[in-house]
């Protein structure tokens, strides 16, 4: 059984199952074990990923320099206007600040940034040591907010308070504070929808926005891809929330339902199948006949356009085996179906922060024998990819060199991507990328691994 071979780390056993071989429930959504070389980042990372695409906000990291340094403009979220979000601001705490506290420095930093950039919104991210030295972020932000008459929102993202998911929640809390109407305000509902969990990587949110426009659906605001302060403030007016990246947004969606009576549906725009299903779901939820008809027309037109292209790739890729290790569950689920569209089976699948429900769906979708694992590490990825004979891996920056060192093709599916993978356009890009890596001629050279005495060794 896979998990007996999984290694030597007993703590990891519960986090790895092989479908069909055992009935046990996969463990997930817990802290990473020490020394397991987890691929996860931290609470701050989770919060920053979710909030950073807000383009006209000042993103100020209260902490020592590293946290800001490692997260400066490394994501692919695009903006249609403001560029402020592409800066990484830090209070750059030094030893004396740790001893005497960083409160004064933080206030002065906000003052200085406001003078220079005149933003309407400031996020102040808490880092590990702020949680320990006890700077009163609430009080400082509240004072700054009054002083500058803008929103200054603390993000409780000290790295040690949980895993990356805790950061999603911290971001959700910050967003809920941001969109909360003043007590006297009356929320005037309209017919628009909010789109939660798209970060406009390589313009993906724009692609979906175009689809919705063609269906006659009015998009109120996207959380948080290419969003701005004013648009976010109008979020409570919407009639419906559609959520894509559930890992980061389901908490927020639940709260918005409770507070503003906005129901939500889960959708995904990765792959032809999920894109079509999602557009239908949105039209059905809004219930207007014209939208349903327009959605069908759009799906028919686009599917016909891209299916021929996808089919071409499928003939070249049929029978290959994929391994998946991505951040969240929704992405993993969509990828299984998307790989099927191009004739590829998934032999190993895992996520950094997938939820129980998502793993159940994954388990339902994959074939017997597929290894499912949560919060995997390089040793496990290596082991199962080799054991299962994977031809390619889908992952992020840290996983890429591992795949390449193993001589395995690789698909970049993270926040750094520079080309869209959403919608019908994205499905074509995805198939093309898979083809470009799986069928690259470089793998042929690996068959001729050694050259000795003028003779190439094909062994």
């Amino acid at each position, binding site marked *: 059984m896979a998990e007996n071979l999984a290694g030597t780390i007993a703590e990891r056993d519960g986090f790895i199952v092989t479908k069909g071989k055992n009935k046990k429930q996969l463990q997930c959504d817990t802290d990473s074990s020490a020394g397991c070389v987890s691929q996860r*980042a931290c609470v701050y990372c989770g919060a920053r990923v979710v909030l950073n695409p807000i383009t006209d906000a000042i993103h100020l990291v209260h902490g*020592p320099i590293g946290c800001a340094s490692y997260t400066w403009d490394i994501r692919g979220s695009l903006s249609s206007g403001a560029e402020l979000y592409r800066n990484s601001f830090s209070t750059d705490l030094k030893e004396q600040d740790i001893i005497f506290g960083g409160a004064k420095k933080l206030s002065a930093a906000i003052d200085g940034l406001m003078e220079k950039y005149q933003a309407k919104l400031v996020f102040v991210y808490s880092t590990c040591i702020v949680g320990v030295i006890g700077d009163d972020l609430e009080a400082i932000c509240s004072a700054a907010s009054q002083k500058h008459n803008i929103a200054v929102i603390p993000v409780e993202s000290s790295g040690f308070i949980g895993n990356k998911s805790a950061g999603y929640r911290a971001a959700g809390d910050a967003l809920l504070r941001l969109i909360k109407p003043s007590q006297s305000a009356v929320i005037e509902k309209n017919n628009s929808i909010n789109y939660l969990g798209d970060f406009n990587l390589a313009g993906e949110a724009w692609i979906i926005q175009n689809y919705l426009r063609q269906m006659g659906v009015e998009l109120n605001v996207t959380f948080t891809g290419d969003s701005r302060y004013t648009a976010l403030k109008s979020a409570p007016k919407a009639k419906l929330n559609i959520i894509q990246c559930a890992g980061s947004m389901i908490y927020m969606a639940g709260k918005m339902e409770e507070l503003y009576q906005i129901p939500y549906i889960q959708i995904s725009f990765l792959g032809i199948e999920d894109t079509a299903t999602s557009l239908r779901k949105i039209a059905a939820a809004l219930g207007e006949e014209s939208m349903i008809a327009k959605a069908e027309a759009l799906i028919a037109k686009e599917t016909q356009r891209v299916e021929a292209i996808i089919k071409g790739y499928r003939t070249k890729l049929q029978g290959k085996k994929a391994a998946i290790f991505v951040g969240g569950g929704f992405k993993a689920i969509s990828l299984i179906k998307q790989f099927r569209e191009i004739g590829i089976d998934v032999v190993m699948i895992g996520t950094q922060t997938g939820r129980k429900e998502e793993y159940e769906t994954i388990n339902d979708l994959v074939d017997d024998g597929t290894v499912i694992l949560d919060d995997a590490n390089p040793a496990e990825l290596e082991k199962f990819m080799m054991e299962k004979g994977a031809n390619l891996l889908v992952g992020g920056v840290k996983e890429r060199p591992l795949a390449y060192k193993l001589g395995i093709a690789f698909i970049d599916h993270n926040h750094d991507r520079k080309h869209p993978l959403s919608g019908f356009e994205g499905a074509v890009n995805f198939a093309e990328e898979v083809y470009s890596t799986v069928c690259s001629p470089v793998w042929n050279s690996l068959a001729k691994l050694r050259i000795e005495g003028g003779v190439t060794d094909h062994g």
Partner: protein
Amino acid sequence: MAEKSKDNVYYRNVNENPCNMCMPMGGILALKGIEQSMVIVHGSQGCSTYMRRHIAEHFNEPVDVGSSSLNEKGTIYGGEKNLRQALDNIMKVYHPALIGIVTTCLAETIGEDIERITGQYLIDREMEDFPIITASTPGYGGSHFEGYFFTLRRILMQLAEATEKNNKINIIIPNMSPADIREVKRILALMQIQYVLYPDFSNTLDRPFARPYTKMSDGGTKLADIKSMGGALATIQMGVTIEDAISPGKYLEEEFSVPLYNIAIPIGVEGTDAFFNTLVAITGKTIPENIKQERGRLLDGMIDSHKYNFQGRSVIFGEPEMVYAVTKTCVENGVFPAVVATGSQVGKLNELLIAAVADCPEKSKILIETDFSHIVAASKEAKVNIGIGPSDGRYLTEKGDISLVRLGFPIHDRVGGQRILSVGYTGTMMFLDRITNTLLENKYKSYRSSMYEKFYQQS
């Protein structure tokens, strides 16, 4: 500019786009150059993941680094349990010959005594001979540059022994590319000099493709060699900018009376001459004919390019040691260093730079412990036309239309950071060619249109 003025060294409330990383990052890089070593970052999970990501993207290599994954409990009650678990798991999966533990802001702020914890661990596990290196590297204590040298010093403090004198020269290098390290080794081999190069990540972070994949890479400075560094003939340390307190070479001098020769990174004629002269002075060996030819070719190439180079007005930024060597080389070739900057706070760079640019026809702007908002602003003001430094300077191109010649660490938006060769006579020539050709490319890009606009349209 004559003294360390407020103009170029300051304490500020906010860092806008960091030009440095944090101490543990340097610690990891140093430890990656030790044979069969593994690193554990004692702190919350994110620190190790962020640093792994940065290193992996620069070198395009799998970078496995453990974390003690401190959570809330560990933060309140101490992280001993986590650190011990991390040690257990790293031992089991990687079977390293040495483990380095670097601390973080969090571990230092809660006052972790890692020496006691690891000492006890080794006793309990009955493996008292196993080398565990501890380095206290809080993120607020300095930049990755200081973390690198400090960790090298810590390794020597814990491993180097009083041994019999040997015939080797210790070569202590700063963070330079694997290609640079290999060039230094080639030179030493040509000179028939026995040496211990420390640290040596030329293979551990740039290994050839081979099957089967191994989790631990070959290469790195051998433990036996490190132990014998106290018996060396002399130490050549490429570390003119570092303070004695973090100097590994100084430690060997003080503890084992190994003569220390601090030299700049051998880039440029003067810089490379100094390296060879030092080697000759220590060993009495002669410089081989082909090295003399390489020197002659460099001089020949410098003449060929001198008029083009004279058009260069550069901004040079990054780690102090590289910044100094590059500035000297630019001055040597008439490329005016209009702005010279580092995010590190290291002591000796400012004075060294003042001397290095003293004879320039114009005044250079020197920025110590600075950030990219200041670097970009100063570069625009000084009408800089070429940037030299790591990828974080890409804003110079985007916001200031200043071409960037990538050099140093990290280079994450181009491939081949590990292959950039700049040291020695041959490396200098390649470095200069990159500068000259970038200047020429810009010239060819615009000279037709600019002359047309300047003269024809006005006639």
